[in-house]
């Protein structure tokens, strides 16, 4: 449990770095979300946009438990385990979807 908590704290502390490094993907996700307004339903658009953002933000943890986006590790030539990367992508995608839903609800509530 302590290990899990430690990873949560590390990820929270490093979230600004993850978001910063994932900014190009986040920007692309926003563009895709807007561009597909006429072609996809709201849920599908959101799922697609979150998937693109997750590609840029999903962390890969090194031997020191240090997180960096998976794509950064790949660009640096650092080893990335496929299973761990897939798990991280899915978890990040779900987290972003949840966050987007919560933000959407909050916006609706505010009118």
């Amino acid at each position: 449990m302590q290990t899990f908590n430690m990873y949560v704290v590390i990820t929270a502390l490093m979230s600004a770095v993850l978001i910063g490094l994932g900014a190009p993907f986040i920007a692309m996700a926003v563009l895709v979300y807007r561009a597909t307004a006429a072609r996809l339903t709201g849920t599908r658009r959101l799922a697609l946009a979150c998937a693109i953002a997750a590609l840029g933000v999903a962390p890969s943890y090194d031997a020191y438990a240090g997180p960096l986006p998976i794509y950064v590790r790949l660009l640096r030539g650092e080893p990335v385990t496929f299973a761990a990367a897939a798990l991280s992508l899915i978890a990040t995608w779900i987290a972003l979807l949840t966050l987007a839903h919560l933000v959407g609800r909050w916006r609706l509530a505010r009118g």
Partner: protein
Amino acid sequence: MKLGSRPSILGLAAILGTALSSGATGGTVSGRVTSDGKPVTGAMVSAFAADNKQHDTVYSDADGRYRLTVDFAGKIKVRTRAPYFKDAVNELDLPVEAVSTLDYQLTKQTDAAALSDSLTASAHLTALSWPLPETRAAFISQCNYCHQVGNELTRVPRDQDAWKETVRRMEGYLAILTNREVEDITKTLATGFDGKPVAVAEQHPWNSELAKAKVKEWVVGDGMTFIHDADVGEDGHLYGADEGHDIIWDLDPHSGRLEEHRLPDIDLPEGGVFSGFQLPIGVFTGKHGPHSLAQAKDGRFYITDALSSTLASYDPSTKAFKLYDVGRTHLYPHTVRIDGDGIVWFTLAASNEVARFDPKTEKMTIISLPHGGFWRAVTDLAFPYVIKIASFFPQRGMHLAVSHTKWAEQGRDAFNLPYGIDVNPIDGSIWYAKLNVNKIGRIDPKTYAIREFDTPQKGPRRLRFDKQGNLWIPAFDDGALMKFDTRTETFESFKLPLLAANEYEVPYALNIHPETGEVWITSNMTDRIFRFQPSTKTFVSYPLPTRVTWLRDLVFAKDGGVCSSSSNLPAYGIEGGLASFICLYPDSQTGTN
């Protein structure tokens, strides 16, 4: 070998087999060291007390002759050691005030493995083939930071994964490397340390000064003892700050009596404020981590407690300690010096600060040093809080996970690391060295205005002033000695003498003899100590008798000794497996030692 003995009537003490009381001499061993009929010059003849707690050593002269008077008696061991020869060892009964003759005929070491094993750590490092000069520089700076690499303990063949595990542990102790450096260093070590003998032709120049010298070593503590620094008290005792065990050691070098005084407990876990680091940090099993010490005019020692962020005072007359809180965001109280007004100054290595403590008012003032760039500012601002958060996860090394030295690949350059400090005797200004960023700086003691200077050689470590106001600086990373003229603000550099062209030295500390003006400087990769004569710009190299000798602050004793602590980390890596106090008496044959 010829052995003869003329025991005196005071043979009773010999039966005791222990160090004698103050001022007494044990016995004398003398003789000649030869090989194939020719004298062996500079051979180290060492006598070991029966309890192995004290070792005395002299060097054979140009004719191979030596004379070693020891202040212990009884069953002693005598060892003669010279480069490229086999050690010769004898045991003998040495009654008090007896004179024994021991001649040695040394035989050349012909076994390649044994010959290789007898070489200094620096020789074994020549087996490493570095992919980039920057990687070698990172290795020298960070992997020799507290200990030799290349000695018997650290050159054991391992595969790269095993080296990675070792390096990761070292990073948990605050070695600062990028992931690329870790990859390259571990690959190099795995390839280079293959267990095969190295063949390095080391040159050991003979100097007639050696024949006058004597080395005394007093073994202290256990295999985990880490006497970071030693100081000579006004009472002539050697005091040592044992960072491993939260102990101040007190050695009377004349009687050999050794006392230990434990620092008071504090409301901190093991590792102190660094409890989130890989623990124990090296061999630091305590909470305070006493690091450096200096004696004030009133007799009290001030001791920097690196792990607990406190300054301790210790009164040798009452054995009483008192703790002064520095503040737990002010990290790693390091080197301490006291100025002419009795003000205590010390560096805070991990938070890029210098502290000023006034013992009269007990007021602590923290002086922030210049950041020197964005990433270093990030370190200075964030690190205290990172280690606080890391302490919620004890011993996990969490700080590495969020460190920009890693994810932003900044490496050691992101840490200023103010290290050595000293007081200019001319104007009272305070000068410090920043080890990782190759700077020295001056603090005005009244206004706290700061000026910094880039050093021409890398790794300025523990600097000291001479009486003329010249600042002498050991360049750890570049194996050099620097002199900074504070009036003209100019540097002069001197490369330390090497045993072989492709070896290197990592000078940690130095001191300037108050009477002769000579600069004494540690070597640390070749088990030597250097004596530099500024007027002739020449070095004398004194080989030291114990392999894996890693010296820290150098201090001068009233009896002529140039003293330090032998504190390779861990102590069990030192030949014999234990730390020691060590004093070199350059003129022992004409003095009392």
